[in-house]
């Protein structure tokens, strides 16, 4: 009975979403305040019903209700309660429900914090959000119902994919979806401004904190995903340019560009059309990610089971949302250049160049991801491109943006002071050459990898620019107003870029990876460390049995740590490798169990020395914090328009006419 309540709640949510979409848009068009006022209650009602449906599904998992097909497919009696809860979004249907739940969280937040906006504007934005809800709720109800019953009811269920039975999986999808879905607010605001023909740029200021927070969550989601792949997949890699990873990376790139473009439009009024387009693209790419993962158009290691009906539905929905918004854009986008003029050497130009690089990079990732499909379409056969393509082009396209990064904050709006930029260039170049060169040489000597040198130089280049600007503010701004949240967020995020660069390039250059056969008592030297294999024992977990190895690590004879890599066999027979990792600020030591070899207790082991790998994720976390911090700036807090009679109050008059 209870699962049917979930089904019913979804249907009621769909009705609410339809109201939230149609009536406020109609009201804003006709200037009818009563219809516009429906937006907020409808959004709240929808959120209640979606939360109820989510709660019902969670309850079905926690109470082992195997009569629900989705529960029987993804959980069993031996699965601990926290993984049963995670299993709610462990497969296609439930993850869609999570998507729609988070969309409702964002919508309710926007409804609550948009009371200072002109009523027609908020009504249009909420109407657009309602449209997105309608699409996803229909998708769930028509093609992917999580409450479908299974008859007869099995005594026990299958198992949650063991890859997903990991703490990283508890937070990865919610964070990632918070980011994806969060771009819907910037999108809805952009469409509302296009529909309303807003001529001033106030809407950009309203959109900025939402964009920053969504981007921060997306960053966190990607970081957690990367860390999870590193710890759980047992390959020791942190990024694979897999289609599904790319699907999250493209909105991230466009989102980063959007954050910068919005700053330009808000402060100077320029680049309006570009900012609108980026807001549409950021959300379009989030939807595209959902499409690519679920439609089966691309085959990927972690694609959800594909079903052509689902593919056709999402494609239709994608066409409606993105095609519709691009059509509105082509009809309504500002046709005349507006805002203040800027010189060739100005902050606007630097941001625009970086923006184009981000956009080109997103296009490059999209092209690479779709390559197999393009190959089929043109009859060239199945071609796919891999990490060499992505890695090389990514570095190439990002290099100009990184080169400009130290100068951005120094360049003034409108016209930059060439003398000051020259001074910054000299200091940054000197620091990068001397400090970066020295550190890079030390790293290079051990590995003879040019990327080690490059990593150190690039990191010092970026970080010295950040330090230089922080110092300038310290000397020039009055105490207490030196680092407002927006500026501090920018510095933090740029620091994150530097830290990430060090991590990514040094890890790639300096990692030592060995696949070895070790009998108990034998040792192998990897990097500066000796790893001694002390044999394998059997241990038992809640729903798995494992072969657990013991590996003692020594640094020139001194014991460092003891690692316990496992090879688990889950109740349903799936085998899963659990790597053992000794984390550290400057290096991770990483051991994974391969296969037993022969009868003498020998095993194949993968032993890695991964210097600076944590810096990759630390850099990402700093970028995330920067995004959150900037969003908290006082300038973005709700403030009622001071003028007594804004143009929007003429709405009732219009409806009377």
């Amino acid at each position, binding site marked *: 009975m209870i699962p049917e309540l979930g089904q019913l709640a979804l249907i009621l949510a769909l009705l609410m979403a339809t109201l939230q979409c149609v009536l406020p848009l109609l009201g804003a068009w006709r200037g009818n305040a009563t219809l516009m006022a429906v937006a907020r209650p409808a959004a709240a009602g929808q959120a209640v019903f979606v939360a109820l449906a989510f709660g019902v599904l969670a309850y079905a998992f926690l109470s082992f209700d195997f009569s629900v097909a989705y529960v029987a497919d993804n959980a069993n009696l031996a699965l601990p309660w926290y993984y049963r809860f995670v299993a709610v979004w462990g497969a296609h249907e439930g993850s869609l429900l999570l998507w729609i739940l988070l969309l409702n969280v964002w919508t309710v937040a926007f409804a609550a914090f948009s009371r200072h906006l002109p009523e027609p504007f908020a009504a249009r934005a909420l109407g657009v959000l309602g449209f997105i809800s309608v699409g996803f709720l229909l998708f769930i109800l028509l093609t992917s119902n999580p409450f479908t019953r299974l008859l007869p009811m099995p005594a026990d269920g299958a198992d949650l994919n063991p890859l997903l039975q990991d703490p990283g999986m508890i937070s990865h999808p919610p964070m990632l979806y918070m980011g994806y879905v969060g771009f819907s607010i910037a999108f809805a605001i952009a469409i509302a401004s296009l529909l309303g023909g807003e001529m001033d740029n106030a809407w950009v200021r309203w959109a900025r904190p939402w964009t920053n927070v969504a981007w921060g969550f997306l960053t966190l989601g990607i970081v957690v995903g990367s860390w999870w792949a590193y710890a759980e997949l047992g390959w020791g890699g942190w990024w694979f340019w897999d289609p599904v990873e790319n699907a999250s990376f493209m909105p991230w790139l466009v989102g980063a560009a959007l954050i910068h473009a919005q700053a330009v439009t808000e402060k100077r009024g320029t680049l309006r059309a570009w900012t609108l387009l980026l807001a549409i693209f950021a959300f379009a790419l989030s939807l595209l990610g959902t499409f690519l993962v679920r439609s089966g158009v691309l085959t990927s290691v972690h694609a959800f089971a594909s079903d*052509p009906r689902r*593919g056709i539905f999402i*494609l239709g929905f994608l066409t409606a949302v993105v095609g519709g918004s691009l059509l509105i*854009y*082509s009809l309504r986008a500002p046709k005349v250049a507006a805002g203040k003029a800027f010189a060739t050497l100005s902050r606007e130009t630097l941001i625009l160049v970086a923006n184009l690089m981000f956009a080109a990079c997103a296009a490059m990732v999209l092209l690479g991801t779709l390559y197999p499909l393009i190959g089929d379409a043109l009859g060239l056969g199945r071609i796919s491109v891999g990490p060499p393509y992505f890695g090389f082009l990514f570095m190439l396209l990002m290099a100009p943006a990184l080169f400009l990064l130290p100068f951005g904050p120094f360049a003034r709006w409108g016209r930059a002071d060439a003398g000051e930029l020259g001074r910054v260039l000299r200091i940054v170049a000197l620091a990068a050459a001397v400090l970066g060169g020295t550190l890079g040489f030390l790293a290079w000597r051990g590995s003879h990898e040019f990327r080690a040198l490059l990593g150190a130089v690039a990191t010092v280049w970026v970080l010295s620019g950040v330090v230089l600007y922080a110092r300038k503010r310290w000397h020039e701004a009055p105490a207490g107003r030196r680092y407002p949240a927006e500026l501090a967020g920018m510095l933090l995020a740029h620091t994150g870029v530097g830290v990430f660069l060090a991590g990514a390039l040094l890890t790639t250059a300096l990692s030592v990876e060995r696949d070895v056969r070790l009998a108990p008592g034998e040792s192998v030297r990897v990097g500066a460390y000796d790893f001694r294999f002390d044999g394998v024992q059997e241990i038992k977990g809640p729903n798995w049995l494992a072969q657990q190895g013991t590996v003692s690590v020594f640094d020139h004879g001194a014991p460092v740590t003891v690692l316990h890599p496992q090879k688990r066999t889950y109740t349903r027979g799936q085998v899963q490798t659990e790597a053992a990792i000794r984390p550290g600020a400057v290096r991770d030591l990483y051991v994974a169990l391969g*296969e037993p*070899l*022969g009868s003498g207790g020998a095993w194949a082991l993968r032993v890695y020395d991964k210097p600076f790998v944590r810096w990759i994720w630390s850099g990402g976390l700093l970028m995330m914090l920067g995004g959150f911090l900037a969003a908290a700036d006082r300038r973005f807090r709700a403030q009622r328009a001071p003028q007594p009679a804004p143009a929007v109050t003429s709405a009732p008059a219009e409806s009377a006419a």
Partner: protein
Amino acid sequence: MSRALPLAIFLALVGLFGFGIWWNAHHDPREVPSPLIGKPAPAFDLPVLGDPAQRVSKASMLGKPYLLNVFASWCFACRDEHPVLMAEAQRLGVALVGYNYKDEPADAQRWLAQFGNPYGLVIADRDGRTAIDFGVYGAPETFLIDAQGVIRYKRIGALTPQVIAEQIEPRVRALAGGAP
């Protein structure tokens, strides 16, 4: 016009995705067409695993059809495939020849000793040079070669009882029926 450009590009993408859905509904993505099907197998001359003095060539295999199964001791998927071969080898109705790919002979022999040897004959391509002529992507892969030395079928990835029953056995029967 330039304001409509994003829309035009997007619609082109939609066309591509629509094609992708249609294509995937009509093709098995695991089936990568091999240009070698229907063509004579490339000439090869490789040593027998564990007995390098004895060599096997394409010419010496002519006259009877055989199933050439590419495997390696380093290949995880081959371990999944192995029990299927052990169970099905007898009733294939055709000789099963192992093609040990880029492997240390000692590792391969230990692997076969541990898990069993379903092959009537195993040839070793230690540096993988000949595998390039066969267009081998990776292990496991399987080729059905007829009595005239022509490749009739190729499977990329592990064989399953279903693939053997639906893809290989009908072809083997057809070959046997066609023979005098």
